[in-house]
C-alpha cells in the first residue's frame, strides 16, 4: 500500500490559514490501512482543528467525508454535492495521488494533510516499512525476493558495499543490509551462483527518471 503519515497539526493549521468552512476528506484505501487518513483519522483531525481555531477565537466549520478512494473519478465525483460556494478549501487526507485528483476535479484550493512516504507493507500493527522502489522493471527474481533498489540505501545491484556489518546498513543500525538478506536467502535456496553474475547498469528510464509514467490497457478501453 502507499504509506503516509499526518503532517503536524500546527503545520496544517498554518497551511489552512484564515478559513471558515472546510471539507475534510478521507480515503478508504491505503491511508485507512496505515491509520493515517481514514474515517477515524478524519474525525480526529476535524475535531482537533475545530478546537484549535476556537481557542484562537475563530469559528471553523468542518464537513467530514470519507470517500471509498480518492484516486478514481467515480468516487471523487461523489464529493460534488459538498462543494458549495462557502467552502474555503478542501483538506485531503489521501496520499499525494488523491490530493491531486481532488485538485484537478474541483475548482477549490486543496491542501494535503499527509506526507506521502513510500510503497510498503505492514510489519505488525502500527509499523509499516518501505519495500518497493517503483523502478518500473522488477528484478526480484534475481535476488530471492528482496529488492536491492529500495532496501539497499545505495541501490547497489552487485552488493554488498563495504559498509555492511553484522547484517546492518551503514546508514542506520535499524536498517538491515539488503544484500545480507539477499545473500542469506539465496544461500538457503541454494542459488548463490546468481550472485556471481555481474548485473549490468539499470535502465532508469523505466523509473521516474524517464519522466512521469503511464500504463494503458487498450483492451479494456471502449468508446
Amino acid at each position, binding site marked *: 500500500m502507499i504509506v503516509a503519515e499526518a503532517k*503536524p*497539526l*500546527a503545520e496544517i493549521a498554518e497551511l489552512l490559514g484564515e478559513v471558515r468552512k472546510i471539507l475534510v476528506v478521507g480515503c478508504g484505501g491505503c491511508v485507512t490501512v496505515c491509520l493515517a487518513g481514514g474515517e*477515524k483519522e478524519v*474525525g*480526529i483531525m476535524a*475535531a*482537533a482543528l*475545530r*478546537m*484549535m481555531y*476556537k*481557542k484562537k477565537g475563530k469559528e471553523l466549520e468542518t464537513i467530514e467525508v470519507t470517500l471509498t478512494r480518492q484516486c478514481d473519478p467515480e468516487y471523487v465525483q461523489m464529493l460534488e454535492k459538498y462543494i458549495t460556494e462557502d467552502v474555503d478549501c478542501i483538506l485531503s487526507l489521501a496520499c499525494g495521488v488523491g490530493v491531486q485528483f481532488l485538485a484537478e476535479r474541483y475548482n477549490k484550493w486543496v491542501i494535503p494533510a499527509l506526507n506521502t512516504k513510500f510503497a510498503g507493507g505492514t510489519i505488525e500493527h502500527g509499523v509499516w516499512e518501505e519495500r518497493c522502489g517503483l523502478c518500473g522493471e522488477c528484478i526480484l527474481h534475481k535476488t530471492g525476493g528482496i529488492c536491492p533498489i529500495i532496501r539497499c540505501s545505495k541501490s547497489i545491484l552487485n552488493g554488498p558495499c563495504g559498509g555492511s556489518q553484522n547484517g546492518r546498513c551503514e546508514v542506520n543500525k535499524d536498517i538491515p543490509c539488503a544484500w545480507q538478506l539477499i545473500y542469506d536467502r539465496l544461500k538457503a535456496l541454494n542459488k548463490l551462483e546468481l550472485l556471481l553474475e555481474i548485473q549490468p547498469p539499470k535502465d532508469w528510464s523505466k523509473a521516474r527518471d524517464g519522466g512521469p509514467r503511464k500504463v494503458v490497457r487498450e483492451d479494456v478501453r471502449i468508446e
Partner: protein
Amino acid sequence: MGNSSTPFEPKIIAFCCYYCAYAAADLAGSMRLQYPANVRLIEMPCTGKTDVRVLLEAFENGADGVYVAGCLEGDCHFLKGNIRAKKRVQYAKRLLDEIGIGGERLEMFNLSGSMGPRFAEIAQEFTEKIRKLGPNPLKKPNA
C-alpha cells in the same frame, strides 16, 4: 476563570469500565463515601472501547477535565483493553497539547472493583486538579 459571584465548578467526565471502575463507584456509593458531584460517570464495557474521537468530543462540548478509569494492568476482563486505552489516552494527551487545551486535563487511572475508597479519592483529587487549572480554554467567559 469564573466571575466574582460564581466560583468555577469543573465539569468532569469519567469513562469507567463496567468490571472495575464502575463497580468501585457502586461500592463507594454503598459505603456512603463522599466524592464531588462534578464528576459524571459514563459506563463502558471495557476501557478498550475508548475512542480518541469521543475524548476530544468531551472537551469540544465543554468538559473541563476527562479521565478514563479501568482495571489494574494485568487484570482487564478482556485482557488488554486497558493497555489499548492507556496508549490512546497518551496519544490524546499529546493531541490536546497540540490543540492548546493541555494534555494534563486528561488522565487514565487503574483500580480494582473492590477499591471504593480509591475511586472516591481519584474523583476528589482530579476535580481539585482541574479546579486549579481553570475552565476549558475553549469556553468563553460566563459560559
